[in-house]
């Protein structure tokens, strides 16, 4: 940090003044988040979603405390039925099913959160820049995004995952993010385009703000709800994709997750032995977690819909 030259003091003062003016804007994101949560909570469907998601997050965080056994401990009897010691029985390899379900929550919540976050970051960066800049690169990005939208995602994920053999959770997140960002980018781009010609953006342009500042400090905060919505959408897709890839046996089959449980259930002939809980429980958890995110999105839709309609009328 250099000491400001006395001649520059004027500009410096302006910058300080601007920093101070920004200060409430810096704290207001918390306020925005709080208000967003309150709005989401006011929609009954979304309230159910928040409660469900909260349950799974608690399960994921406190899995080691809640689970009765170590999920990879295979020292129990094989393919046991329900009992007081094993509420959901044991797997064909002799592991406790309940402990695996509880620990599986950690994997799904983690993958959903990280992959959703990364996809959203890419979607926000590309969608906003692409929506704000009017140049020839816009057409190129348009083409690339449309390409990623029409190429079937799961086959692409399967092919990439087959080359990067047994890469585990990191590989799965990578594959899901690569194929999952395009939808959010397109939605955010159209919203940016409709906000681009609003008065507050014109005002910012005239006051000499850089394009980066306009896009990320002026336009971005106006799309919070849409961004939150695309995060939940990406997270849902990530959780379903992760389960699908692991069910096919791509990825590390020693990971404790709901997808891997289903993989082992089919490969150990749980269908024939009649241990329906091995099929039923992991899939139900995946569905409930994915549903909880979709339900929350009903509340987020309520936040963003009036604005979307304004954009559609232009």
């Amino acid at each position, binding site marked *: 940090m250099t000491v400001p030259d006395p001649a520059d003091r004027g500009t410096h003062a302006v910058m300080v003044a601007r920093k101070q003016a920004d200060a409430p804007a810096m704290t207001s994101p918390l306020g925005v988040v709080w208000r967003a949560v309150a709005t989401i909570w006011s929609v009954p469907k979304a309230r159910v979603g928040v409660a469900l998601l909260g349950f799974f997050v608690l399960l994921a965080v406190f899995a080691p405390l809640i689970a009765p056994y170590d999920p990879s401990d295979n020292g129990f009897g094989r393919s046991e039925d329900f009992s007081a010691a094993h509420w959901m029985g044991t797997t064909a390899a002799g592991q406790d099913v309940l402990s695996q379900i509880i620990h599986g929550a950690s994997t799904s919540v983690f993958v959903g959160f990280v992959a959703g976050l990364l996809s959203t970051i890419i979607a926000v960066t590309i969608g906003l820049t692409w929506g704000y800049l009017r140049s020839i690169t816009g057409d190129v990005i348009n083409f690339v995004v449309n390409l990623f939208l029409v190429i*079937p995602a799961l086959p692409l994920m399967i092919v990439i995952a087959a080359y990067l053999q047994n890469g585990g959770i990191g590989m799965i997140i990578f594959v899901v993010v690569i194929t999952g960002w395009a939808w959010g980018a397109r939605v955010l781009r159209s919203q940016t385009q409709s906000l681009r010609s609003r008065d507050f953006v014109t005002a910012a342009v005239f006051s000499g703000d850089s394009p980066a500042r306009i896009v990320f400090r002026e336009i971005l905060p106006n799309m919070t709800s849409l961004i939150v919505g695309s995060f939940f959408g990406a997270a849902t897709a990530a959780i379903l994709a992760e389960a*699908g890839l692991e069910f096919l046996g791509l990825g590390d089959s020693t990971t404790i997750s709901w997808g891997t449980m289903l993989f082992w259930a089919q490969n150990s002939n749980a269908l024939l032995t009649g241990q329906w809980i091995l099929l039923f429980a992991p899939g139900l958890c995946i569905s409930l977690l994915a549903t909880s995110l*979709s339900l929350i999105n009903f509340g987020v839709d309520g936040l963003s819909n009036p604005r979307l309609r304004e954009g559609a009328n232009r």
Partner: protein
Amino acid sequence: MRFLLTKVGLLALTLWAAITLNFLLPRLMPGSPADAAIAKLAQNGPVSSATRASIEAQLGVPTGSMFDQYLQYLGNVARFDFGVSYTFFPQSVAGLVGAALPWTLVLVGLVTIIAFIAGTLLGVLAAWKRGTWLDTLPTVGGTFASAFPYFWTALLLLFFLGYVAGWFPTSGAYGRGTSPEFSAVFLLDALYHSILPATTILITSLGGWILGMRSTMINTLGDDYVTFAEANGLRPRTVAIRYAARNAILPNLTSFGLALGGVVGGSLLVERVFNYPGVGYLLYTAVVNQDFPLMQGLFLIITISVLMANFIVDILYGILDPRTRR
């Protein structure tokens, strides 16, 4: 005409991009997929130089210029030469894909059309009877069902209706001992085998159509011409179907193309569960056996099929809505 030319041009560009992506994928990956493929092929016997060249054109070689490889690859794709599978040695990839494709096309195609029609009707009903149980039931049910992983619905149906109840066959697309032929007996048998996979795809994809149609329908119901039709004293059913629904279908059709990719992806998992001999099951087999030539060929065919379906929907959209032709 101009509309058609633009669409054809865009299709050509998209096809080129997909084919190029297929070329780049194995070359961007760590290790040498081509060497691994040729080494596996060599276990079946001597590898002819023609086979080696076609595999290298597809999967990449460390030597030689990238541009030459690209040209050779494009030539091979134009001749449907995707090399030889080593899982099903000595069958060609093109032949294997050609045998598997009809099963998936018929299954996914028919189910998607049924789901689209049923979902659209239910969506119209839900929007028209907004707030009643006719609205709540399909909306909530659809949301929950679309969160089901395809393979889970498949596993549950397979277990409860296939194994426990024994109502449906548990594996394959036709009974053992029969072979594909055009006879009533075989077609009925194939239909019987396709009920569970079809139901799975229907259950999971229906919700999306209901929700999409419902929301566009609610938007059109607020339009002036609907109010005008109501003010004219037309029967409610006429207003709902001839005025509102007719215009709400169009936006829903756009999502048809985009949703198709998801349905195809889901059907891959469904085929794995039911051992259904389509493209998805073949892709699974290729992945498990690290059969890279087969895998690349399948990925290309799947992608091209989805692109073509999107193209057809686009053209259809242009025919149905004159405004998009500009």
